[in-house]
C-alpha cells in the first residue's frame, strides 16, 4: 500500500500545498489518495448518468415545456405556416376538463378496479396451491404455469384474438354448444375479453413473486399451528397470506401502474373491431392518437402529464392505505 500511495502522491499536482502543510503529510496524503480512488470509481457511473440524463431527464423537462406551447396554423384549414406560441397552462387546463379523455380514464379505472384484485386473488391462490403441493409436483407445474409469462405480450394478445374469433377460434363454438351466443368483440364483452387475456398473461409473474415470498415463511409456524389444531385452509389464510402482504402490495401497485397505461391490447383489438374500440378508447390510445395521427404533440404531452399525475395519485393512495392498515 505504501509504495502505491507515494507514487500517486508524486504524480499529483502541488496545487493544494497549503492544505498539506496543515496536517501530518502522510495522513493527509492517504486521505487524498482515498478521495481520488473514490472519484475514479465514481466516474464508472458517468456513462449511465449521461445516458440517463439525455434519455430520461431531458424528455421529462421537454414534456413540461412542450405542454406549455401550442402550434397555431396561420393559413386556415391547417395548411398554412405553423407558428408556435406560448400558451402557459392552457393545454393542461384543457386536458383536465377533456370529457373524451376522462371517459377513457373511467373505462380503464373500472377495468382496473375489477381486474387488479382479481389478478391478485388468482395469483395468490395459485401460489398457495403450488405451495401446498409436493415439492416435485410443484416444480413440474411451476414451469407450465409460467409459460404465459414467457410469451411476448403481442403474441399473447393475437392468439387470444384468434381464440375469440367466430371463424378461427374454438371458444365461439364452445359457447354455442352451451347455448350462448358470445361475441367477444362486442362493446359489452370487449373488456371481459381483454381482461381474460391480461389475467392469463399476468398471473404467472405475480404467482412467481408471491410463491417466492411464501417459500421464506418459517417452517416452525406451521407445526405450531397444526398442533393447535388449525386446518390447512386456516393456516393458508391466517398465516401465509399475512406473511406475503408486502409482496402483495408490490404486485398490486405494479398491476395498477401497468393497467392504467393499457395500450397494446386495445390497439390490437382495434385492428379487428374498430367500431367497438374507438381511437380514444383508453387514455394511452388517445395520447398516441393525438400525437401521431392528429399531430398535436403539445396537447398529447399535456394529456400524458395528466395521466402520469393520476397514476402517481393512485399509487400514493394505495401505498398509504396499505401502510396504515399495517400499523
Amino acid at each position, binding site marked *: *500500500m505504501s509504495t*502505491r500511495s507515494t507514487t500517486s502522491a508524486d504524480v499529483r499536482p502541488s496545487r493544494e500545498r497549503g492544505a498539506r502543510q496543515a496536517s501530518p503529510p502522510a495522513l493527509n496524503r492517504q486521505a487524498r489518495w482515498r478521495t481520488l480512488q*473514490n*472519484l475514479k*470509481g*465514481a466516474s*464508472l*457511473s458517468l456513462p*449511465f*448518468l449521461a*445516458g*440517463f440524463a439525455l*434519455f*430520461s431527464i431531458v424528455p*421529462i423537462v421537454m*414534456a413540461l415545456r412542450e405542454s406549455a406551447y401550442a402550434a397555431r396554423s396561420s393559413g386556415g384549414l391547417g395548411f398554412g405556416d405553423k407558428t408556435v406560441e406560448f400558451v402557459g397552462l392552457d393545454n393542461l387546463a384543457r386536458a383536465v376538463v377533456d370529457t373524451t379523455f376522462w371517459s377513457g380514464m373511467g373505462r380503464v379505472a373500472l377495468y382496473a378496479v375489477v381486474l387488479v384484485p382479481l389478478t391478485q386473488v388468482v395469483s395468490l391462490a395459485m401460489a398457495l*396451491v403450488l*405451495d*401446498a*403441493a*409436493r*415439492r*416435485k409436483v410443484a416444480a413440474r*407445474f411451476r414451469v407450465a404455469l*409460467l*409459460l*404465459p409469462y*414467457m*410469451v*411476448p*405480450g*403481442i*403474441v399473447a394478445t*393475437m392468439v*387470444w*384474438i*384468434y*381464440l375469440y374469433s367466430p371463424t378461427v377460434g*374454438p371458444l365461439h363454438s364452445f359457447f354455442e354448444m352451451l347455448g350462448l351466443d358470445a361475441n367477444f368483440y362486442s362493446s359489452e364483452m370487449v373488456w371481459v375479453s381483454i381482461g381474460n387475456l391480461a389475467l*392469463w398473461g399476468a398471473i404467472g409473474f405475480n404467482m412467481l*413473486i408471491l410463491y417466492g415470498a411464501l417459500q*421464506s415463511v*418459517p*417452517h416452525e409456524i406451521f407445526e405450531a399451528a397444526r398442533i393447535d389444531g388449525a386446518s*390447512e385452509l386456516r393456516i393458508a389464510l391466517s398465516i401465509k397470506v399475512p406473511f406475503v402482504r408486502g409482496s402483495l402490495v408490490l*404486485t398490486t401497485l405494479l398491476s395498477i401502474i401497468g393497467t392504467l*397505461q393499457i*395500450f*397494446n391490447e386495445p390497439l*390490437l383489438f382495434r*385492428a379487428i373491431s374498430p367500431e367497438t374500440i374507438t381511437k380514444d378508447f383508453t387514455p*394511452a390510445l388517445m*395520447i*398516441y392518437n393525438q*400525437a*401521431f395521427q392528429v399531430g398535436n404533440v403539445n396537447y398529447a*404531452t399535456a394529456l400524458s*402529464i395528466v*395521466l*402520469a399525475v393520476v397514476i402517481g395519485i393512485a399509487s400514493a393512495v394505495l401505498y398509504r392505505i396499505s401502510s396504515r392498515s399495517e400499523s
Partner: protein
Amino acid sequence: MSQTTLTGAPTEVPVPEPRPRRRRRTDQEPSAAEARGTSRWFVLGVLVLLALYAAGPLWWLLVAATKSDGQLYTTDGLWFADFRLFSNLQTLFTYQDGIFGRWLWNTVVYAGIGSVGLTIVALAGGYAIAKYRYRGRGLTMGLIIASFLIPGTLMIVPSFVLFTRLGIYDTIWAMILPGMFGSFSVFLAKVYAEGAVPTELMEAARIDGAGEYRIFFSMGLRLLTTAGATIFLLHFVASWNTFMWPLVFLKGVEKWPVMLGLYSWLQRGTDSSVDLTSLVLTGSLVSTIPMIALMISMQRYWRSGVTIGSLK
C-alpha cells in the same frame, strides 16, 4: 481465506440472497404446508386446471401453425389436421421477399446490441454506487428510485420530439440507445455488486498496484458474471417483446422488429393472394419459441432478477 477462495474461482460467485431465508426446505423434508389425503387430490386437480388454462392457448397456436389455410377454418382447433407446418414456414419466409426474416434479424440486432451495451453501462454504474463513497452517490440512487415511478407513457411523446431533434428518429439508434440506460438494471447491478464484490479483494488488488479501472475491468466484471447474465437476459427478452416504442419511432417497414411486423399483418387481415391469418399464426409461433427456450434454459438468472426486482 475468503479472498483466496474467491480469486481461485472467480466465476463461482453465489447469487446474493435478496433476503435472508430463515430455513430452506429441501426435497427430502416433507413440505411444511403439504396437504394430506383428499385435499392433496384437490390441490392436484386445481393445478391441472390452472396448467390447462396457462398452456391451452399455446397448444392451440402450435396446432394452428401446422394447418393449411382452409383447414384452419374447418377443422377442430384443438387437434391436428393435415400437417402443413413446413409449407406454412416456407410461405412465411418467402412472403414479400422474405420480409419476416428481415424482421427477425432486426429484432435480434436491436435486442443483442442494446443488451450488451446496457449490461456494460449498468454493471459499471451499479459497481460504482455499491463500492465507492463519493458526493452525488445518494442523489444518483434517488434518481434511480424516482425513475421507477415514472410511467412509460409520459416518456413517449417528448422522446419523439427529442429523437427528431437528435436525428435518430426512424433509425436503429432509436431502438438501441435509449434502452441502454435503464435505471432498473443499474439497481440490479448495485444489489449484486454489494454481495459479490468483496472490498478486501479490491484492497488486495490495490496493494498489488492495480488502478481502479483495471480492478473493475479485470476483476469486478468477472465477479459480476451472474449479474451481467441476468441483466442481459431480462433486457433481451424485454426488447424482443417491445411494441409501442418501434410503433412510434420506426417508419420504414424494413427496419421493423418482428412484433410490429406481425401487428401490421394482423391489421391488414387478408391479402389478395395469401390469407394473412395463417402467416400471423406461424410467425407468432416462430417468434415465441426462442423466448420460451431462452427463459426455460436460463430460469436461474431471470428468477433471481425478478425476486430482487420485487424488493425495490
